[in-house]
């Protein structure tokens, strides 16, 4: 296929897009984000966008809340002056003596906003959370482009970084993947401020996917206030590392924050670790409650889950993909 060159290793050192995309993974010694077969399988799926979202009915494949005259029948309405006579249901006029117009389902494209956390905390873990975040954003972005949605990729650290998009069409896929792979770690996470800022910039709303570890001192609930439905359909993908749940640490330790460099002396014993696990569980429950309270979908994802075998089926099960 034409995009096969994207995943081909760079042997010639040329400056073409596909070769440039594979340059960074090979230089890091890492595997590419996707393989070709995976993208082909992903093409059969699409994002599950709500009907209430405002989109452009000229393109797109998502159902709209509007009904328009169409050959595909779903309902009638009385004829009014100026309506196209091609959509008059003459059979109904013959039986009922009323001129009725044939109406059908309208389709639209939606604005897809993919917010990816690029802070340093995303680099910690085995594998790093950032890896899965790049794969997720890449896959969802590919689905958006493939289904003629308007895509925007917004990486953020303490503030919003230069964004990719808004754009439409598969032709931007290579550029999008290169953009995602080129993300550099940021010193902090300003989740709430970035979301508020982004919501103000795009008042028409859309489908927004927040892909983050949510380790931000700013509250998620406050941030979700600016992403209120029905204008926004919010999907929070919480990337969790196994060591967030089971630290595997013991004894006297000096813990260092990967973003702020702040240190904390703790002596970890069974009692302390149990308290830690309790606080993590409470924190996750708080996040889920906040999302539920603001009409957002909260989907915790373990960073070691394989994308195709575990993450995608999980998203389908949560009706985030179809």
């Amino acid at each position: 296929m034409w995009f096969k060159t994207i995943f081909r290793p760079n042997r010639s050192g040329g400056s073409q897009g596909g070769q440039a995309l594979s340059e960074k993974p090979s230089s890091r010694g890492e595997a590419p984000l996707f393989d070709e077969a995976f993208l082909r399988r992903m093409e059969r799926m699409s994002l599950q966008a709500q009907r209430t979202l405002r989109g452009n009915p000229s393109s797109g494949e998502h159902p709209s809340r509007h009904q328009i005259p169409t050959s595909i029948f779903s309902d009638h309405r009385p004829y009014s002056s100026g309506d196209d006579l091609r959509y008059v249901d003459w059979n109904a006029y013959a039986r009922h003596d009323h001129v009725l117009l044939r109406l059908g389902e309208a389709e639209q494209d939606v604005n897809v906003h993919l917010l990816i956390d690029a802070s340093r905390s995303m680099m910690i873990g085995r594998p790093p959370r950032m890896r899965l975040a790049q794969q997720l954003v890449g896959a969802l972005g590919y689905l958006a482009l493939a289904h003629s949605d308007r895509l925007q990729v917004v990486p953020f650290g303490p503030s919003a970084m230069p964004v990719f998009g808004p754009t439409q069409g598969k032709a931007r896929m290579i550029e999008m993947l290169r953009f995602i792979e080129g993300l550099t770690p940021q010193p902090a996470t300003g989740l709430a401020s970035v979301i508020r800022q982004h919501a103000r910039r795009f008042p028409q709303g859309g489908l927004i996917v927040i892909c983050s570890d949510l380790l931000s001192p700013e509250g998620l609930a406050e941030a979700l206030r600016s992403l209120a439905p029905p204008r926004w359909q919010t999907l929070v993908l919480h990337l969790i590392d196994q060591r967030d749940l089971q630290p595997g640490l013991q004894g006297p330790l000096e813990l260092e924050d990967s973003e702020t460099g702040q240190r904390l002396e703790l002596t970890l014993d069974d009692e302390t670790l149990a308290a830690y696990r309790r606080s993590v569980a409470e924190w996750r429950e708080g996040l889920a409650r906040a999302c539920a309270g603001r009409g957002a979908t909260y989907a915790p994802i373990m960073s070691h889950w394989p994308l195709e075998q575990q993450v995608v089926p999980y998203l389908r099960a949560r009706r985030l993909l179809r």
Partner: protein
Amino acid sequence: MTFLVPLGLLALLTLPLILLLHLMRERRRRVVVPSLLLWQLVPRRQEAQRRRRLPLTLLLLLHLLAAALLALALAHPQWLTDLLGRERHLVVVIDTSASMAAPIGGVSVGSRLDAARARARALVGGLGGRDTLTLIAAGPEARLLDSAGPAGAARLLAALDGLEAGGVGSDMASALTLSAADMQGQPAGQVIVITDAALPTLDADLRRAPERLALSWEQVGSALPNRALITLSARPNSGGPTDVYARATNYSGAPVRSVVRLYGDGRLLDTRQVSFPAQGDVELTWTVPAGVGMLRAEVDGNDSLPADDTAWLSLVSARPLRALLVSASPASIERALRAVPGMSLQVIDPADYVGQESPNIDLTVLDGVLPERWPPGAVLAINPPGKNNLLDVGGLSGSLASEADQLRSSSDTTIFDGVSLGSVDFGPIHAITPPDWAQTLLSRGGRPLILRGSVDRSEVAVWAFDLGQGNLTTRLAFPLMLVRTVRDLTPAALPASALAGQPVGLRLDPRTDVVEITAPDGSVRRLAAPEGEALPISLDAPGVYALRELAGADEVFAGQLPVNAGAARESDLTPRRLPAATAAPPSASSDSERDSRPLWPGLAAAALIVMLGEWVYVHARRTAVRSA
């Protein structure tokens, strides 16, 4: 272990300092986490308590070990080879005097010697490695019993089993001298004296004992009351009754009434009630009729030491002497000989004398005649004839003595003590060449007048002058010289009594081959008679000993020797204050250098190894933290 620089141990003060530093600054492993957001939610109320607890880490142990090793190395410790296996040498001196037969006293059962034996057995049982132990018995005479290591323990135990208490006095000075000699070249030796401390002469003994001994004293037994007959003696009274004196002593703090009995030849002669004052004596006298040979006095016993409750005394003051006088004119000689106590005399003419050798003749006096060989026993040859096979007799010299011919007497004899020979005219003197076996006791102008010597089994005295041609027989000096010569030639009488354990020198008949001694318990001991010397014997058990002098199968003499255990220095069972234990003198500096092993190089090397291990541990941990 000793320290050459003890001040170096002050470096051990770094140990609490290290502990304090570890307590103050607990070193934590640094771990980078995505965010402290979650960790800050953990309750930290017990953190302060955890900080106060000392973290027992490998690093802390390594620091403490290194500091301790360095501190010890600074003190320059050194092992003495005593602790590295040098042999220990013990000398155990056991008091075996009669007082050790007394009970221990108190609630303990058994004699003091039993207790001493048990203690010595324990010491023998404690021998190990190359240790050695020497046993010395300190009775009236000190004796070295045996010396062995652990392999010879059975021998030592057998020697201990053979010990018996007996004899008066403990010769501690000789025992300690023996100990010192035994410990020659044994720097790790020690002397242990086990005694009941009833040693009145201990201070004098210690003055004679060698100094600089590692000496410790162990006392067995306690003070016990005792009564003893410490003196029983008689004044010789020829032919008549004998006056007997006895002294009994009460060694207790309370007065005691008792009974003293006197037996003569086994027959009860007298019984007296006596009252002993506290720590006092009772003196008794008796007059014993003539004819009694052996006296026995008894004080009523029932005290701690029965052995000294009985005393024996022999009243036989003279040894029977059977003499044969061969002389043509025996009158003067016979008259003088008959004055000798216990003498039975037989006189024969020279013509009848054919050189009789009879075991019944103890003394042969030959006047003007000599047989072919010297008769056995005592022989006095007067005026020996010129022709004989025994002496080289020359012609007669003149009788008038010039001024230059002064009498010269030997200082080795007591025959002439108190005897005036100034007016004695010995008459013509035979020119006798003194034989090798004879010594000249009296001479005039170089010519021997009286010779004395021992030849074969004969004690011989030669008077080289004719009694009939001088005036000696008319002088007082004649019977004195004759009796003294006879006493010199014949053995002395047995002592009236002897103290148990004290040495007695028996002067035997020259014909005696073997002396047979029968102890009070019936055991018989046979001793070979030395030639020309007294036979020293020591009899430990109290009682009456029977002595027989045998010449082949013939009995030459039979007598009795009583041995008593009562003595002031032995019967008093009050323990004396024993001296404090003394340590061995420090050895010479060269020895100490040779025997010491400095340890600081090893300790310093060990500290270096520990510090190297600490560095490796810290480096490995840092690497692990970085990789994490």
